[in-house]
């Protein structure tokens, strides 16, 4: 039963999925960070998350908080600390909805 339902959910909003996986031309700030000119929102999230993990940027006392380094600060509104919970929303800011 379950896979059918999931399939249905995916089929129901192809736009949402497209919005997540379509390649987008990046603004220059993000281009510097990911090192390529096009990426999907999902790809960008994965990139940032693995960057955080690779550079041990999670606060040692509270894993839910990320202490941004200079590079990360530049793409996350210049904040020195962000919460992991906000991360998807912050990244979404770089991917504005396309005007119809």
């Amino acid at each position, binding site marked *: 039963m*379950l*896979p059918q339902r999931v399939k249905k959910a*995916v089929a129901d909003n192809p736009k*949402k999925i497209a919005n997540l996986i379509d390649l987008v031309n990046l603004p220059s700030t993000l281009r510097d960070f990911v090192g390529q000119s096009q990426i999907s929102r999902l790809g960008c*999230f994965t990139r940032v998350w693995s960057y955080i993990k690779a550079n041990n940027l999670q606060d040692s006392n509270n894993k839910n908080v990320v202490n941004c380094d200079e590079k990360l600060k530049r793409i996350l509104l210049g904040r020195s600390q962000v*919460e*992991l919970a906000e991360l*998807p*929303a912050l990244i979404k800011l770089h991917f504005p909805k396309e005007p119809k």
Partner: protein
Amino acid sequence: MGRIPPSLRSAVSTSLIKRAPDSQPLSDQPRQFLHKPIKRKPAKVSAAEQESGRLQQKPLLKSPDLNDAKKLFNSLVAAARAPLEVRFNNAFLQSYAAISTPDNSISLLHHMSKTLPSFSPDRSTFHLLLPHCCASPESSRSLSAVRQTLNLMVNKGFDPNQVTVDIAVRSLCSAGHVDEAVELVKEMALKHCKPDTYTYNFLVKSLCKTRVLSSVYGFIDEFKTSFDVEPDLITYTILIDNVCNSRNLREATRLVSVLKECGNKPDCYVYNTIMKGYCMLSKGSEAIGIYKQMKEDGVEPDMVTYNTLIFGLSKSGRVSDARKYLKVMVDNGYLPDAVTYTSLMNGLCREGNVMGAVELLEEMKVKNCEPNSCTYNTLLHGLCKGRMLEKGIELYGLMKQVGMQIETASYATFVRALCREGRVAEAYEVFDYAVESRSLTDVAAYTTLESTLKWLVKARQQGLAV
């Protein structure tokens, strides 16, 4: 519910469905076809065959180019000390057909019989060309390629038989050309031979997947009147399964009465299918009704019956009844398996009795019944729903240790439970695991995580969450 005998399944369907990608070394596939007629189980591999098998180990053919293949074949003929066997030639042709177009394969066959007069294509040669002809993406073209191969076959003196039809139908259906398969079967029934029950039932099953019910009935009627092919018990089981899946139990009941009128006695499979239908709709009393009817009709319930019944009763919230039937099951000599226990656990979790479910896991271990990934996922789901996150995390650790996959529903519940407690970093870690273990696609996993976090941020703003 397709009940194709295993011997047939191994010979026809699996080898056809598992169409080898280009990169795969050409090993097993050809050999399965070498034993004709294919409805027999492969005999022991002879020494000569091992020889040809060894030849097939290396991917001889890499390019789909016809001239390359011709050249390679010429060089093989020149290098061979003994005359090449039909078997070798067939394997060669099959390897080429797997990576090339039907037209080119047929050209190669012509070339092979021209350069090597001793090679006379046999029935199996055509049988192994057929699936490749059926698989071409444009449906209109595939049937013409099939016709071409069949004509060639008739010209060489082989009348297409039921095996031929079966191969063609199965490959056409697995490539999604069901309508073409029907057309072909009709054509063959007129010209050569009627489909056997296996082909017929397979076709009915494929039709059920793609067409509306009335059109399937039309097909059955047409075959009854024009070709004198009657639906049998298996056909009815397939139909009943289909209507049960579309939640049309009234039609299922009607089909059972039709089936009885036709002189068939419903067997265990039919009853299990209907019972499954009721269980899907959480109709516990009706499921018990079917069980009683089975007893009245003198049909002995099997393992599947009991598992279905226990699943249905748990699903409709009647765990105590489910336990009762667990006892009946044991009394009748069936040992409950992981499916039985998982169904019961599901019921207990639904009732909110999560600890009961955990106890059941212990009981499973005592009874030496190995829990499967579904068991663990059910339990994880239940623990998170029942606000026993710590236990859930513990269980997740166990799952992770053995690399068990996490199902969509349990993943979502688990991530939500973690976020609700403000343990976002752990939720991220679960996200990583779900993607790494290939349990979910990254899109699905991310969508869940994102929407959960969105909800969390909102709840925090309203002062509702930590």
